[in-house]
């Protein structure tokens, strides 16, 4: 009932640096996981799962990936869509070559291909910084987009130039392809996202996370205290792209069922970047909040006028979505550069001292 930490004393440094140091938070996360894993699949409609929850989770993972690179290591990337695409196409080719191997394993493996691409396109970060680097990542975005269109081998020479997901099962239940139910796919996505979020939180709380943040805050000083910049930056690129790659593979295999190069173009990169900015640079929780807000925004804009019996053209909704998105980005950068995650923290702090704030 009351959000208090009084009386909870930490007696070890391990407990002090735990992910959820406060008992109430521990209860909270268990509750959230219970709802997400059990209640939602049992009660939510297919529509709610397939057009709201699954995509939010998929985009959250991509946003976490970008956040590790941009929010934690300070390297601004505009190539997220491309790296997601590498994951998706790699997964498709793997599924073609190794039909016998479990699809979840393949989805994870495809992350390694994205990581390799990330390292390759991250190499310029050793010489250049800031805007220059973001232009370099733009190069990777356009190059990869071009590959997805011009190399027919990637989509098995389909006439439609798109990838169609084959049906694969896990424990006898179909998890990909047309026969898999939204709920099953949702649970697989949720499991992957939960585990990978936990792993990311481990990374950023330890040595690697600190070296990333050190490079972000002041790379010269970081080098002078013994941090190797090239290792640190390339590792950030690799891990970030791994996350994006897995997200891309999930986007195709566990959500859309098929995809074209369009799904991985520059606009996708921007959308993920906006999720990170609005959610909060340098916050894992923010990645989820940002994904939810940006994915939810057009849905809200589409449905709200319906309540008032107004009919607005689909194109108009799209235009308004763009405007709102742009305005939100600017608004957040001005008012709360640390994004929704910071607002959440402030809320928690208020709760801690409620009802006597002084």
């Amino acid at each position, binding site marked *: 009932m009351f959000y208090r930490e009084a009386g909870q004393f930490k007696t070890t440094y391990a407990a002090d640096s735990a992910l959820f140091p406060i008992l109430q938070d521990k209860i909270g996360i268990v509750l959230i996981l219970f709802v997400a894993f059990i209640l939602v699949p049992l009660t939510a409609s297919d529509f709610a799962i397939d057009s709201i929850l699954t995509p939010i989770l998929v985009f959250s993972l991509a946003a976490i990936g970008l956040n590790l690179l941009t929010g934690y290591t300070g390297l601004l990337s505009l190539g997220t869509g491309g790296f997601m695409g590498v994951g998706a196409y790699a997964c498709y080719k793997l599924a073609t070559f190794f039909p016998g191997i479990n699809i979840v394993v393949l989805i994870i493996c495809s992350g390694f291909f994205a990581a390799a691409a990330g390292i390759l396109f991250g190499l310029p970060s050793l*010489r250049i910084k800031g805007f220059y680097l973001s232009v370099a990542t733009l190069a990777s975005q356009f190059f990869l987009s071009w590959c997805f269109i011009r190399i027919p081998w990637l989509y098995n020479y389909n006439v439609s130039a798109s990838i169609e997901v084959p049906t694969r099962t896990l424990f006898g239940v179909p998890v990909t392809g047309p026969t898999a139910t939204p709920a099953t796919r949702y649970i697989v996505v949720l499991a992957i996202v939960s585990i990978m979020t936990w792993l990311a939180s481990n990374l950023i709380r330890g040595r690697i996370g600190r070296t990333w943040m050190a490079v972000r805050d002041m790379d010269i000083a970081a080098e002078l205290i013994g941090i190797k910049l090239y290792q640190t930056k390339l590792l950030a690129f690799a891990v970030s792209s791994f996350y994006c790659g897995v997200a891309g593979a999930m986007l195709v295999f566990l959500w859309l069922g098929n995809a074209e190069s369009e799904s991985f173009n520059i606009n996708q990169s921007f959308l993920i970047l906006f999720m990170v900015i609005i959610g909060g640079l340098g916050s894992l929780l923010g990645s989820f909040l940002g994904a939810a807000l940006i994915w939810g925004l057009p849905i809200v804009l589409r449905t709200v006028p319906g309540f008032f019996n107004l009919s607005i053209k689909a194109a108009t909704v799209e235009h308004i979505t763009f405007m709102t998105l742009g305005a939100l980005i600017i608004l957040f950068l001005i008012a709360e550069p640390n994004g929704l995650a910071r607002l959440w923290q402030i809320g928690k702090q208020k709760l801690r001292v409620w009802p006597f704030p002084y």
Partner: protein
Amino acid sequence: MHLLYQIFIDPFVQMGTAPDLFVQTLWEGLVTGVLYSLIALGFVLIFKASGVFNFAQGIMVVFAALALVGFYEHGVPAYLALGLTIVLMLILAFAVERLILRPLVNQAEIILFMATFGLTYFLIGFGELIFGGDPKVMISGALGLPSGSYQIKTLGGFVQMQKIDIAAAIIASLMVASLGIFFQKTRIGRALRAVADSHRAALSVGISLEQIWVIVWFAAGIVALATGIMWGARSNVSFALEIIALKALPVLILGGFTSIPGAIVGGIIIGLGEKIGEFYWGPLFGSGIEDWLAYVIALVFLLFRPQGLFGERIIERI
């Protein structure tokens, strides 16, 4: 072997055997390059004076062109529409200064950079909402711009030059020249250069930052409008041009962020490289390489000369 031949020998043989086509390609590259230069010029203006890397410059080009055609379509005479669009760009400059730059003053450059992403998206949504999302035809006829082309018989073939392209090249040169004079000779120009060097020092000698910002954003808006008209005359006006507008970024990398000559030379190098690459090497890779060739040229260049063609080497201090 054959592939090596195709990559390293054959294109040059083609250039030699059909020189008229080569010249035609050079011309195309040059014209594209001039347009890239113009977009880059807008970037450089804003970056010099406010330290903002304005990602939205490309969108401002499309926005200005769209507004011009949009006004005309609503029955406004062409030259009045031009005037109205200029006023619109002034309003935009004021709005940007008041709503984005002023609240974000003293923030990290990267924050301002990201804010211009927001501006980009806002302008796309706003432009399409007001003027519609369908591609439009530029009103070059009504504005009195030349159409048609010259056929020049040379080198055993024909080289075709669109009159509008020639006009674009002339207008671009005039614009650069007048900007140069403006920067060097006028009081505001001197203030601009002072602000570019150091915001705080400029403030301390009584230069109004707000005023300077409005002026440069307005100047960049005018440059954007001119670019938009030229570009629109060559193809349709729609936000699909956004992708092409982003090509100004590699141009900047080549030329340096603060150098107007750099923007011009960089634009022409990128334009030429891209068209020649596409025409002679593109078929080998299944065409469309001009989508990314510019970036790769810039990237390779960046690895060897991080400060750009005309930029100065920066000594890191701590």
